[in-house]
């Protein structure tokens, strides 16, 4: 039994590529390909095709969630949050395909996604309020809190990574163990449950990323508007 798809190595010519990388490429190719093929037939007025309907529903859903969570104009956050959601969702859902190793079940992928969130929080904050004002939020309310703020940002990144990795890896491992002891029906039920958890994990990862981004941004904004007596 392998703990993570990092340990499965394929040899492509002289290159040695781990299963994580191969299946990440597969998911990326699938997403980009589906978007390219579908977008060729997009049109602004009805009658619209099925693919356009699916994509419009997805985008509307993500936009609505961003608006609900951050209470900001959702458009700037759409590319980042939507990509995270779609990538994690696709790789979790494809884990029911036999032979597919979900790339999110590797700590490397989960850590990379969490690092992207870690970098996106200051990036969105700085884009909104500027570098100086954003950095000043670290010294609020007193500079004594600086180590705790920094520590909090690091631990929540770690928690994001370990949560995604642990959930995906444990569900695929559970199926592997069940295949050994009760191979008839139970693994199918657990895989069905794994589908639910996969969707939930993609949703939770995205919502938590948005919560972190929104908290970073609105802290900075609150500080700048306090002088005018306005608290947003």
């Amino acid at each position, binding site marked *: 039994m392998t703990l993570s798809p990092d340990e499965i190595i394929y040899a492509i010519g002289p290159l040695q590529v781990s299963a994580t990388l191969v299946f990440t490429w597969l998911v990326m190719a699938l997403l980009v390909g589906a978007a390219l093929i579908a977008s060729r037939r997009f049109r602004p007025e009805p009658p619209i095709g099925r693919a356009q309907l699916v994509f419009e529903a997805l985008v509307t859903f993500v936009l609505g969630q961003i608006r609900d969570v951050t209470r900001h104009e959702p458009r700037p956050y759409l590319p980042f949050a939507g990509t995270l959601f779609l990538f994690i969702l696709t790789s979790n859902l494809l884990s029911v395909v036999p032979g597919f190793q979900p790339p999110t079940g590797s700590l490397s992928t989960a850590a990379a996604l969490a690092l992207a969130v870690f970098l996106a929080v200051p990036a969105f904050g700085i884009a909104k309020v500027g570098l100086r004002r954003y950095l000043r939020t670290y010294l609020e309310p007193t500079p004594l809190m600086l180590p705790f703020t920094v520590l909090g940002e690091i631990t929540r990144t770690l928690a994001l990574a*370990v949560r995604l990795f642990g959930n995906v890896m444990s569900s695929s491992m559970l199926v592997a163990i069940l295949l050994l002891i009760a191979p008839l029906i139970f693994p199918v039920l657990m895989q069905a449950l794994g589908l639910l958890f996969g969707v939930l994990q993609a*949703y939770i990862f995205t919502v938590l990323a948005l919560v972190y981004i929104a908290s970073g941004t609105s802290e900075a904004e609150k500080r700048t508007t306090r002088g005018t007596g306005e608290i947003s």
Partner: protein
Amino acid sequence: MTDMSIIAVASVIGAALTVAIGAGLAALAEGRAVAQALQSIAQQPDETNSISRTMFVGLAMIETSGIYCFVIALILIFANPFWSAVT
């Protein structure tokens, strides 16, 4: 007992206790959170969307501690750092 068997026994018992206590307490906490959220939804059905979204985020937070315990149990069983001391 040899050093090796002591380490093996301690690792297996440690892993079992880690998962048992970690999963049990996380489950208790999640049960409390869900019960409270359901009560809130019963009182204010209009706020169902917002309450359930917040509940899911909170559940994910709680579940993280359970997942930590699971990862530590896996490390104890599959990637025990103390094996290198005796082998």
